[in-house]
């Protein structure tokens, strides 16, 4: 089987800072891979590069046989790329157009990508909303009227409307309450049971990874320091940084400890903005 996503030696600089520094990734169709890292690890930049929201400085991305289209791509190319990958953002409050009813948001995408119109389109829209656990009657609600979890469900429904091969989840549950986080993780797991879809799950939260992804890569300072099966990485980390990360996840019997021997992260210390 051919991989869905292949990333080779990806590099991205922001000025003097190197956000992504030679990342290799491989994702098979239907696979769920977590990218774990702390702030400054380059995980979000990697997601933005894969989705084509930013362009890399070096390296190669192949998604469903094609590279992400550039900013001046033609309509057909854009639509084809949209059906290959979709993105769910961290903040459900800003990832939906605040003036657009959530039903219209889904319908707009359906109309753009498919032949459905009229009643058939509405039926499909309601089906998508129900699938993510929303009430079809909520189609007429604006994001403001929904809770954080409901908004995130709407964002997922909108992404699913194009039936993408890959869903990139950029800290998609980080802003939610613990009990709602579980709902969304649960929903994502069930969606994957129903139809083949691959996940690239970007998160800082190692503790939630094994409940959604069978595989994980750990990033630090723009590089991948460890990769493997989620359970193995959690129970027997090989890299010292991964071990520090695992040891920092609170769980029964855990005690916080200072780790003076730990190497400082490559992420530069905050600089004062002096004129």
């Amino acid at each position, binding site marked *: 089987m051919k991989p869905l996503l292949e990333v080779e030696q990806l590099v991205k600089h922001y000025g003097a800072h190197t956000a992504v520094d030679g990342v290799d990734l491989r994702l098979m169709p239907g696979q769920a891979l977590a990218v774990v890292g702390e702030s400054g690890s380059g995980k979000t930049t990697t997601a933005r590069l894969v989705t084509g929201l930013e362009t890399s400085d070096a390296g190669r991305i192949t998604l469903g046989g094609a590279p992400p289209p550039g900013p001046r791509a033609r309509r057909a190319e854009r639509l084809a790329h949209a059906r290959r990958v979709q993105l769910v953002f961290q903040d459900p409050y800003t990832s939906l157009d605040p003036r657009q009813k959530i039903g219209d948001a889904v319908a707009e995408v359906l109309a753009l990508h498919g032949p459905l119109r009229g009643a058939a389109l509405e039926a499909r829209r309601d089906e998508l909303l129900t699938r993510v656990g929303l009430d079809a009657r909520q189609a007429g609600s604006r994001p403001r009227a929904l809770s954080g979890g409901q908004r995130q469900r709407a964002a997922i429904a909108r992404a699913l409307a194009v039936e993408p091969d890959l869903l990139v989840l950029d800290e998609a549950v980080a802003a939610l309450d613990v009990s709602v986080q579980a709902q969304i993780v649960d929903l994502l797991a069930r969606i994957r049971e129903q139809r083949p879809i691959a996940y690239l799950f970007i998160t800082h939260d190692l503790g939630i990874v094994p409940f959604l992804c069978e595989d994980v890569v750990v990033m630090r300072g723009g590089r991948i320091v460890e990769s493997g099966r989620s359970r193995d990485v959690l129970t027997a980390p090989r890299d010292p940084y991964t071990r520090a990360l695992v040891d920092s996840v609170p769980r029964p019997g855990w005690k916080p400890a200072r780790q003076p021997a730990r190497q400082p992260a490559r992420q530069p210390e905050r600089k004062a903005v*002096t*004129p």
Partner: protein
Amino acid sequence: MTAHYLLRRALGLLATLLAASLAIYGGLFLAPGDPATLLVGGGKPPNPALLAEIHRQYHLDDPFLTRYWHWLTGMLHGDAGTSLAHHDSVAHLIGSRIGTTALLIAYASTLILLVGTALGTLAGLRGGRTATAVTAATGTLMAVPTFVSAVLLIWLFAVRLGWLPAYGTGDGLADRLRHLTLPALALAASWLAYVAQVTRSAVHTEQGSEHVQTARGRGIPERLVIRRHVLRNASGPILSVAGVSVAGLIAGSSVIEQTFGLNGVGALLVQSAARQDLAVVQALALLTVTAFALVNTAVDVATAALDHRTPIGGARP
């Protein structure tokens, strides 16, 4: 505050002034007809000999950039040409009037900075009814245009009460200040209200900020909280708005001088515009824009010095 920052600000200022001077000079050629006709001023029927003389005097037949350069270097040497309406050198016209305008603006600035910030600070610290009263009063004051304040002040203090003179400049500093009191009040009124409002809101914001609450929560004496945390942190916005208002006075002085019959450069600008006396208008426009830009730059630099977080240097959104 680094030398690099200051240099960047200075270069920015220079670029602005250069572009502004180009716009002011170039405007002459946007107007319909022969610029020489405009330079004659007053809309008199043009005399061919005079036109030719003007073409020669103003190098109107040279390429545009040459003409502009000639004009600009002249300006920098204090040679702003001749006013055809006044039959006098522009430099002399301005030189004899600028003292009055400078005194008026200084007077009004003092009023704004002292009364405006004091009023705003009081309202911001007291809150409650004081704040409501100050907000309502300043809100109304801001809607009163300068010339209406002038008319009201003249009517009340000069006509009804007879306390202060309504017209003229006076002799000697004390008398001049007495004559300038009503004009300065009229000029300062709406800006004073504006500065008071911004000050109130800046102080109020700091009062409610979490670091001020923390300082109070730690039991720091109230006067220290107010001085070191509230006023110190509110000073940035207050300073910048005060600077902007001082810059705004430069423009407002035209209206005030016209109303109170003051013989300053503001009135000269308006009268020259009415007579289409272009040489004077160009020189004064450049002077005003320079003063405006200088004040704005000075304020930005001072704000940056006060608050190391804001790299205002050309920080465009």
